[in-house]
């Protein structure tokens, strides 16, 4: 988090000039001290400490400086790339599907059909329900013994035996993705719906008058308006899903056989199952630098900071 630290120092060191009104030094302190103290104590110090720790093998019991040895071991191990791949697959699948469903639903609701309002209120549910609850719901539905999906599939003759989705190699990741999409499609939905409703309806009127088909209207009017939001959703939610820990841990713990182990899961395993804090912090470090790289791209592309500064 050295960038944050640098900005803090820059702010403090340079002439803090504010509007020409007197007697505000105390106010200034009251505004910035909490935030600065907070960031330093809860973000900067732990991260710096952890990065330092990643340079040691068995740093808790008998610290031994290995420089980048942990990183080398981490990246040299073929399994790492498998976990990275899982992370990417999970992030892409969840975000992509969420986007498609969210977009489809937003387009539908925007048509102002009957029951549209009710449906929109309905979509708040996935957003509201705590992740744990969502997991419980889907674990039940997909349960091999009494899950209703299996019940339905067997009854319909599509399969002979019930499938234990979360514990089957081929179905584990898809099951996790479906669960995640159920919860997160509503984010994409609300954001896209807001953008859609901001489009001037006169534009569509004009297109109709000039003879455009529905597809052409979508392509030439709707899509350009949504492009920005779609990109942001893809990038930001993509990152978010890449970083997700709780959904996967709660549904499969990373199994079966590490099939759904993503990098966040692996970090947890290294720290608490294998109690190897050197490697755990190293992997956390890798993820940190990965995120920093993506963040740079994000800032260059969207300059979101201009909204406030």
């Amino acid at each position, binding site marked *: 988090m050295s960038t944050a630290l640098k900005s803090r120092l820059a702010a403090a060191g340079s002439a803090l000039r504010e*509007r*020409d*009104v*007197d*007697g505000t030094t105390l106010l200034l302190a009251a505004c910035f001290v909490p935030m600065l103290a907070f960031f330093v104590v809860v973000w900067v110090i732990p991260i710096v400490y952890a990065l330092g720790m990643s340079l040691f093998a068995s740093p808790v019991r008998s610290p031994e400086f290995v420089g980048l040895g942990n990183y080398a071991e981490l990246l040299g191990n073929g399994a790492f790339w498998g976990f990275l791949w899982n992370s990417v697959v999970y992030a892409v699948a969840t975000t992509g599907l969420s986007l498609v469903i969210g977009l489809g639903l937003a387009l539908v609701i925007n048509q102002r059909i009957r029951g549209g309002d009710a449906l929109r209120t309905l979509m708040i549910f996935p957003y509201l329900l705590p992740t744990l609850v969502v997991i419980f719901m889907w674990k039940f539905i997909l349960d091999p013994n009494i899950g209703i999906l299996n019940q339905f599939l067997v009854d319909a003759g599509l399969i002979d035996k019930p499938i234990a989705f979360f514990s089957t190699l081929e179905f584990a990741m898809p099951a996790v993705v479906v669960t995640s999409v159920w919860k997160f499609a509503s984010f994409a939905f609300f954001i896209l719906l807001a953008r859609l409703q901001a489009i001037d309806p006169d534009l569509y009127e004009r297109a109709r008058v000039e003879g455009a088909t529905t597809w052409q209207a979508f392509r030439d009017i709707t899509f350009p308006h949504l492009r920005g939001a779609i990109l942001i959703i893809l990038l930001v939610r993509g990152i978010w899903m890449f970083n997700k820990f709780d959904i996967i841990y709660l549904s499969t713990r990373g199994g079966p056989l590490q099939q759904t182990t993503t990098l966040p899961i692996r970090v947890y395993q290294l720290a608490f199952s294998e109690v190897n804090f050197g490697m755990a912090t190293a992997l956390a470090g890798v993820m940190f630098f990965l995120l920093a790289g993506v963040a740079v791209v994000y800032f260059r592309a969207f300059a979101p900071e201009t909204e406030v500064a």
Partner: protein
Amino acid sequence: MATSIHLDTVRKEFRTLGNTHVAVDDLSLDIPEGSFTTFVGPSGCGKTTTLRMLAGLETPTSGTVSFGDEDVTDLPPQERNVSMVFQSIALYPHMSVRENIGYGLKVHGVPKAERDERIDEAAAVLQIEEQLEKMPAELSGGQQQRVALGGAFVQDPDVLLLDEPMSDLDAKLKSDLRVEIQRLHQELDTTVVYVTHDQTEAMTMSDHVVLLRDGELAQVDPPKQLFDYPNSEYVAQFIGMPSTNVVDCAVEAGDGGTALVGPGFELSLPAGIDAPTAGRVRLGIRPQYLDVGSDGACRLSVDVEVVETLGTESVVHGRLEDGTSFDVVSDAVDDAVAGDRLDVSFDLANAFVFGEDGETILFGSERAGERSSPAGAGGVTP
């Protein structure tokens, strides 16, 4: 109690990342106590910045601001006895109208009974008694501005500052509020400083008008003086609607005396005037002072382009033979059409002559500078 205001070489610089912008450039000004003074000028001329320095919301980079004998330059706004009405109206959305008006009194510890009394009085003066218990969001723009005025009124300030309070209002509201503000000025014993970019407001309401240009003082005088005796081309063109016509002329000395030669006309200068005898000058004549026909001393032809009929008179927008745009305001041009050639004339007495530096040389046949600065305005005209 109203106080006079004195600005002494006030300078305000804004520094951002290596650039320094001079908003107010060594401005010196005297505003008499109890007067209604308007700062006017185009965007960026420094009028709002100067007003904010009077309020204490900006501190001068150098120079002093005094109210009467007291130097208030470094005094924060809380400690000056000023009231201010903002362009954006700035009513507290979470307080009722009554609370909005009374807020300043509350801060000063005025007891509730007295507060309510003074609020009721202000509301009566501004005709907003019906609105007292409402919230700002329920009011129209005009009503909101009256509430803001009420808040200022109730403080009984030494100095009342108004920062373009009518920019967001429609024309009818503006004229209503103009009357309100002038009435307020008469009721209160206070010095009013009013900022606007609209010269009609400036001319109709003020005792004195301060015209600024790029942070410097262009002229300070009562409105009529400003209109009849602009001390520069800038002033002549800013004051008056439509703008003064300005034409390039050459000065030629001949046997019959000196004459100003312009596109399509010649104006002889009577003997005895202290006027330049060579070089180029610019001639200014207000559209209102042009007569249709050829009776005046100086005759010229205007190619008509656009005619605006205003009812009692018309405005003709046209061009002289060299392409200079030229306007005529008269009640005798109602039937002019685009493409016509209009003959107009004027007398030297109504014209201004400006030197190449923009400064006025002649007001009619009077030499500029012979007129002393009128007492009372107290402005330092550079």
